[in-house]
């Protein structure tokens, strides 16, 4: 299914500005994500990339500029916000599974409460996605009993259970031990093959090369460069990006 209404872009950020007090964290950020496009956002810590992605489903509010998601503009209108949040799934760095609910309950909570789906149907849907992320046998356990990689895969399944048109990933592998990163990235790559619209903040350059249509480099609250993985990684135009790539490559 194609994201966006009438084939329009899935996400538009137009001159978005945000301040924390006097700290200017987003400066005139412009970004358009087409339906079924996969965008990877990278940049040094404190560059505003997480803030930017969190603005897309209004976990953070922007102060200037316009954000239009799936044809609906984000404003103080709560009804519009509810509509957008139903269609936008999010995966967090720290998983944020609900520790008092089982894996299955984590996955069925929103479909049952927000989409008003009957329990049986919601459970069948959840089991389908848990199989998809290859952990159906953990359905009856609690999050605390799972490894980090398993928890993050559950978090992905939980977001998918709302059948979103757009998925946001906020550094999905940064809190994981190295040996678990691959299982999570493989799950995300699987989604990419299905044509899901995605925005992913990550430092995993190999992953970016493999799945991204476009890589956006942010620094100090600005979008500094944007292009195909080849353009951005092989031919950086700015000193800032060259410096960042040097650091990341040295670190790995």
């Amino acid at each position, binding site marked *: 299914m194609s994201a966006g209404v009438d084939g329009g872009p899935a996400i538009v950020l137009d001159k978005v500005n945000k301040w924390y007090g006097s700290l200017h964290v987003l400066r005139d950020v412009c970004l358009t994500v087409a339906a079924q496009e996969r965008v990877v956002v990278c940049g040094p810590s404190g560059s505003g990339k997480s803030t930017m992605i969190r603005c897309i*489903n209004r*976990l953070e509010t922007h102060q200037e500029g316009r954000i239009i998601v799936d044809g609906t503009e984000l404003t103080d209108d709560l009804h519009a916000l*509810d509509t957008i*949040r*139903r269609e*936008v*799934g*999010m995966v*967090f760095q*720290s998983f*944020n*599974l*609900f*520790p*008092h609910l089982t894996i299955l309950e984590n996955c069925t*909570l*929103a479909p049952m*409460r*927000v989409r008003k789906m009957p329990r049986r149907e919601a459970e069948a849907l959840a089991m389908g996605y848990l199989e998809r992320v290859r952990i159906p046998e953990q359905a009856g356990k*609690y999050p*605390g*009993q799972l490894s980090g990689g398993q928890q993050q895969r559950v978090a992905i399944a*939980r*977001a998918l259970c*709302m059948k979103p048109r757009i998925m946001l990933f906020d550094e999905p592998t940064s809190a994981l031990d190295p040996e678990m990163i691959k299982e999570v990235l493989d799950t995300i790559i699987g989604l990419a093959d299905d044509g899901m619209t995605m925005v992913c903040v990550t430092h995993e350059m190999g992953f970016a090369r493999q799945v991204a249509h476009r890589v956006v480099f942010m620094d100090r609250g600005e979008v500094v460069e944007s292009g195909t993985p080849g353009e951005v990684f092989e031919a950086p135009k700015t000193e800032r990006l060259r410096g960042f790539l040097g650091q990341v490559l040295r670190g790995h």
Partner: protein
Amino acid sequence: MGDAGIDRVSERTRGVGPWAWMRANLFSSWWSTAVTLALAYLVLRGLAGLFAWGVVHAVWSVPVGANGMADPSACLDAAGVGACWAVIADKWRLILFGRFPYHEQWRPALVVGLFIGLYAVSAMRRFWHAGLALAWVVVLAGVGVLMWGGVLGLAPVPEDSWGGLPITLILATFGLAFAFPLAVLVALGRRARGLPAVRALCVLYVELIRGVPLISVLFMASVMFPLFLPEGVNIDKLLRAQVAFILFTAAYLAEVIRGGLQALPAGQAEAADALGLTYWQKTRLVILPQALRLVIPPLVNTFIGSFKDTSLVLIIGLFDLLSMGHVALSDPPWQSFSTEVYLFLAVIYIAFCFAMSQYSRSLERGLDRSRRR
């Protein structure tokens, strides 16, 4: 004690049975043995003294004199040597049920039973569903009918004659049942970022109530509040005390609950938001179950404190359990036997408070099992 010492102790505790345990913990050195023996001596002496006073030399009943009053001379003879349980034998119904008409006292007795049954049922997790709320409504209505009477062929009993344990349980139960939801709302209101007016109101309420002693809140409710009412309007004293008690307890509970809300990582609320849950769905299904679980120990602490605080209604002329103890002691034959009466009251208070604390511990263990880390 160094690591070597700890190792030695744990090695010994690895032996089985009480003897191994005692050798490791009570008699591991000459010093430890000496302390153990000295303490054992003191404890046994104390217990023996208590046993002699409370059982061996105790006076269990006294004859009734010609004037219909108890004759406490046997007790007076035993003063200082044996306990006078005759005062309890003579006065227990007055202490427990107050001045409720003597032949109708099965009603407050049934009320106490209903309350205890209600607590027991509410404590069992398999009854935690909508039916439980209905059970509360039914039982609390039943309590009203039994106490007031006037319907179903029950003789009406005015509130002035109520007293003793039912008053204590009514104040505590209604108090906590209403204070708890109020406290949840106040705690949420205090954290409502988008509603500054609500927030200010909640802060004002908590700070105002917390800033004054319960006694003065009760005084205000019983003495000052009626002055502001129009002529002829009269809200009864028990209700006024009950409302004061609810408002007071809720302020403290609200702060405890707010502590739990603050201890939750922000990611929980964000994940719920990102899934599209509404504010109330998020609060009810994600935030509160976790926040309340975190604060079970301080919640129970406040519950126990409130239960005992009900005894302060004494000063506005309501006759709770403790007040009835005072009334019983004002009877001339029994005036010098306050120790026995207070011990009797203490046992009742301890029974309720101990049950609460034991339940909270088992609840914590039960909830931990379902969320192993």
